[in-house]
């Protein structure tokens, strides 16, 4: 790996740390529940996408050539808002001050009508990939060369509509469509495999005719390599990047802990979470 790439990865790691810190700060300030577990599991993926993988421009959100990002796991909205704020789309202070309040554009699940810059309104699981297939068909028909990137949770792929969309994407040879899966192996109330047999998970996608890339969803070098290796948008096969992740990643008492699917941090817990995040970073650097 050359020095430029090493520098880029370090920059992305710093941004992911900033994203997690800002997430925790919001979770410690906002009185309602935040889907902090799943936010932390996608923090690296969203950082890599908005700061490296996606061709988007905060100064021109209607640019027809922009890549389209579909957050199918809409409950990670706040993580996306902050990732987009770090990229320059929104103001983090606005998000922090107004999140979930009456009249705010920043709510638990994203709404395109209230928040331009977000590509579509999501939140009901299993709906994002069909939307992305439609966007990819439209793009290809126009001869446009942008990508459509859809982020799903692994639990979400229990929804049958995901597999309808997987078949439609393959049948229509949508090489401009890329799905990222946040494979954190936790549902809301259970560990996934205890309830639903997902494995052999990559083989399921292969059987549906998709190119499968397996990545470490918390290793920026791995995510960057996955993004660098994506096929050209005029190729004939959709790609899924299955990212192994940990729900609650970065805060030891939240990791693998079913209690932290959603919650809020009081002042004392916020301090504890921030210290844990800092410790986890030191460990990663060491």
């Amino acid at each position, binding site marked *: 790996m050359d020095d430029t790439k090493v520098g880029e990865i370090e920059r992305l790691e710093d941004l992911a740390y900033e994203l997690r810190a800002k997430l925790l700060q919001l979770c410690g300030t906002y009185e309602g529940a935040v889907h902090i577990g799943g936010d932390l599991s996608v923090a690296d993926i969203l950082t890599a996408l908005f700061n490296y993988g996606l061709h988007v421009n905060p100064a021109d959100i209607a640019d027809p050539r922009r890549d389209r990002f579909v957050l199918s796991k809409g409950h990670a909205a706040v993580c996306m808002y902050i990732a987009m704020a770090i990229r320059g789309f929104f103001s983090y202070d606005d998000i922090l001050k107004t999140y979930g309040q009456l009249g705010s554009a920043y709510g638990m699940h994203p*709404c*395109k*009508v209230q928040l331009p810059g977000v*590509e*579509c*309104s999501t*939140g*009901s699981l299993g*709906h994002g*990939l*069909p*939307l*992305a*297939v*439609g*966007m*990819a*068909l*439209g*793009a290809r*028909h126009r001869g446009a060369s942008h990508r459509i990137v859809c982020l799903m949770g692994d639990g979400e792929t229990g929804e*049958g*509509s995901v597999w*309808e*969309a997987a*078949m*439609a994407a393959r*049948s*229509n040879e949508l090489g401009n469509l890329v799905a990222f899966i946040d494979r954190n192996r936790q549902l809301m109330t259970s560990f996934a495999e205890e309830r639903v047999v997902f494995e052999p998970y990559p083989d399921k996608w292969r059987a549906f005719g998709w190119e499968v890339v397996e990545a470490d969803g918390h290793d920026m070098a791995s995510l960057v390599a996955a993004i660098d290796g994506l096929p050209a948008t005029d190729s004939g096969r959709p790609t899924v990047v299955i990212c192994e992740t940990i729900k609650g990643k970065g805060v030891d008492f939240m990791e693998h802990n079913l209690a932290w699917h959603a919650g809020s941090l009081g002042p004392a817990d916020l301090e504890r979470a921030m210290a844990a995040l800092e410790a986890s970073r030191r460990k990663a650097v060491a």
Partner: protein
Amino acid sequence: MPVTFTFGEMLSARSVIGSTLAELGEQYENLWVLTPDIGATLVEFRDQFPDRFLDVGLAEQVCVGIAAGLAYDGNIPVVSGMLPFLSMRALEQTRTDVCYPNLPVKIIGTHGGLVGNGGSTHYAVEDLALMCALTNMTVTSIGDPLMVGEVIRQSMQMQGPIYIRLSVGKSDAVLYEPGQHDVRIGKGIVAREGTDATIFTHGTTVLQALKAADQLALDGRSVRVVDMFTLKPLDGDLVERCAAETGGRFVVLEDHLAYGGLASRIADVVLDRALGLSSFERLGIPQVYAGFGDDEQLRDKHGYGLAATVAALRRAVAGASDPSKGTR
């Protein structure tokens, strides 16, 4: 070449859909047609615009989801299929992916009502109640086959979604000469003038209402027939006018559950505007899963056929009450 049709002639609404979409496909480069394996009457569009035609196979949910994605991308998608499945299997996609962001997706389908002899899996009888509940959705139900083309054409100018309900669509009676009525989405059509009572209806039962009005004319009674082809937004002003002009005597006839469809929507207007009717009777499908039989047999069996309609109108003009009131 302009073609004229005369009252009573049979025409396939599906063929009108096919030719209208092919015509509009020429005019609108962003018009797409999608179907979950119900594409037989879409061949004209498919053959002329194969790259804007998508048959997803048996998958209603993704069909509507893809349509929403195409609409986000600046296209005007038409989803065509069978309504018992589109209106229920894809209800959440319709509500959340289409109506919530108010996208210009058109859902056109057949098998509204006890039609086609497919049994209860294949009758859409709750669909209008479901669709009328959705914010931003415009809801129509069309009997006259030529009107289908006109409504599709008008809907091209709409910002948001529209639901267009048809009967089986293979053989539909022409009700109106082209140009006879000013067809406008959101406005009811007075298909026949009258002063003693009004019968409101939509879709496949408009013809039956006209026949019933003919029979009442033989009694010396004048019954107004309103083709309320737009259920949402409902033409409340026309309802109010009919109350004033036809003695406050209303009968509502529809091939849909008697509660939840047009009758309920008209009843809402009556209450909201305190219209003070002298009679109100609804004829429609009771709370049963209907069995097999041809369309007319099923309407007769379930109490909203021609004879029942004539009887209801006779009660209305005589000021008598419905013996079965409140039991449906």
